[in-house]
């Protein structure tokens, strides 16, 4: 009878030992401080974040834990208190996030331009039109001839941008998405490009992912519309708010923000993959905004991604007003 009970005693003990050993292994293996970041996929999938991470971890005793998700999910991670910091590119969502009280210390770090890409044959003839004209043409040819448009459809920054562009062009996105030519991929940029490529369709692409796929000859789509204020894409970093989630690593989040906006951080962004593609994938925004070197572009950035004239309204500065000289 005694031996009957042995297994019921031994098993739980073993489970406890394994669990404790695992936790210790985890804790001891990570004596450095931890900064958890959710970043938009375009910054991560291009490899830029790997480079930033290497430079930052070399300089500070902090380990970056980087989660690559769309802007929508990054914001929801921050609201649930799962991450210390987010890197995103959807100004309207960022403002709502700040207003709900979950974010502080927003800084604009970089910008680039989206591109409307499509098949080599360009059936709708949108080449070098303005973005608004191009979208109207695509709708016209979509309805008349079934030329397809593929949308990210995943609530990411790029998807948010796309919806905004339809609205700016005077179209109603909610009713349009029910039409046959309008396809929602519900996935990341890479997959969306592949879907568009296979369907000979048009789509809105971030240049980083597009150039990568193009260079590796995964897709045969080409850029058709690349100019215009409407295509501006602005990346910002926002720290989580300690008053909502006291456990957050706010100090290291600020250190990381300061690193990103420092000359060193901005250099890394500018030089990233420049040699591979013959052009920068992301352009640093900090000195541009501070010194107003290109007034037209600065005006575009302010129109698109400033809130009442501020990159971060003073009530969301947190304890670090020095970020906003």
């Amino acid at each position, binding site marked *: *009878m005694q*031996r*009957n009970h*042995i*297994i*019921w005693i031994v*098993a739980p003990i*073993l*489970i406890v030992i*394994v*669990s404790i050993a*695992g*936790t210790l292994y*985890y804790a001891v293996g990570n004596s450095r401080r931890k900064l*958890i970041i959710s970043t938009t*996929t375009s910054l991560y*999938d*291009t*490899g830029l974040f*790997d480079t930033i*991470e290497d430079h930052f971890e070399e300089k500070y005793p902090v380990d970056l*834990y*980087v*989660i*690559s998700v769309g802007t929508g999910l990054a914001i929801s991670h921050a609201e*649930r*208190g*799962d991450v210390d910091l987010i890197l995103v590119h959807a100004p309207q969502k960022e403002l709502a996030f700040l207003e709900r009280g979950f974010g502080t210390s927003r800084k604009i770090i970089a910008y680039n331009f989206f591109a409307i890409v499509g098949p080599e044959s360009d059936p709708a003839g949108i080449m070098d039109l303005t973005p608004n004209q191009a979208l109207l043409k695509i709708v016209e040819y979509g309805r008349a001839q079934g030329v397809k448009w593929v949308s990210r459809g995943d609530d990411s920054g790029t998807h948010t941008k796309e919806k905004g562009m339809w609205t700016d062009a005077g179209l109603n996105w909610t009713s349009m998405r029910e039409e046959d030519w309008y396809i929602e991929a519900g996935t*990341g*940029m*890479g*997959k969306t490009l592949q879907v568009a490529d296979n369907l000979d369709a048009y789509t809105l692409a971030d240049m980083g*992912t597009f150039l*990568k*796929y193009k260079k*590796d000859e*995964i897709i045969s789509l080409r850029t058709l519309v690349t100019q215009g204020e409407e295509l501006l894409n602005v990346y910002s970093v926002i720290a989580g708010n300690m008053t909502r*989630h006291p*456990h957050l690593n706010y100090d290291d989040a600020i250190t990381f923000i300061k690193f990103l906006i420092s000359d060193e951080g901005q250099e890394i962004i500018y030089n990233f993959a420049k040699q591979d593609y013959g052009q920068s994938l992301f352009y640093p925004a900090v000195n541009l905004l501070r010194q107003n070197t290109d007034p037209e572009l600065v005006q575009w950035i302010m129109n698109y991604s400033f809130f009442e004239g501020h990159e971060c309204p003073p009530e969301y500065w947190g304890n670090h007003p020095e970020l906003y000289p």
Partner: protein
Amino acid sequence: MLEFLENPILQITFRSLQISGTATLLSVLWGLPLGIAIGMRSFPGKPLVKGVFNALLGMPTVALGLILYLLFSKSGALGFLSFFPSTQAIIIGQSILITPIIISLATNAIESVDPEINDLARTLGASNTEASIAVLREAIGSVLLAIIASFNRAIAELGVALAVGANLRGNTQVLTTVIAMEVNRGNIEYSIQLTIILLMIVFAITIFTNLLRRRIK
């Protein structure tokens, strides 16, 4: 000398083996005794219990991943554990995922053993545990197969590892999450290399088990 251990592919592969191995070990620790108990005894509601575990065999990994994320998230019920994102969370998730496999297959294996073996052992004066061991010895081949099927399911799943591990570089990346990420990044070749490793692990372990089963029989 040990520089090759720094190789990211090796690290990811070892981490996959370690996580799914630990998950399998844990689910064997609690699942096997439970499976044997259910298999050897008859009690009211037994078909219901078996039905529940059979139904859980088909648990979609995205569903389990979402549930666990909501539990482990800082705003979730178990948020104080700080398990999101971590390898422990993947281990727990995978072990929950495969426990029904162990229990169901072990129960079936035990039930298919001739009941006379149990009776015979007892007439020869065996205790409950000794009789269990005698029955288990007869069913060992099928139980091994259950364990391997569980391990393969664990190492091949993506939903849980992505949801609660979040594919952190050098930290919670496992083979499946890296394959998914590298496909997104357009690094198809690298994804293929990792896919081959994953397939080799699954096939090698299955073949090894089959050989082992033959030797036991």
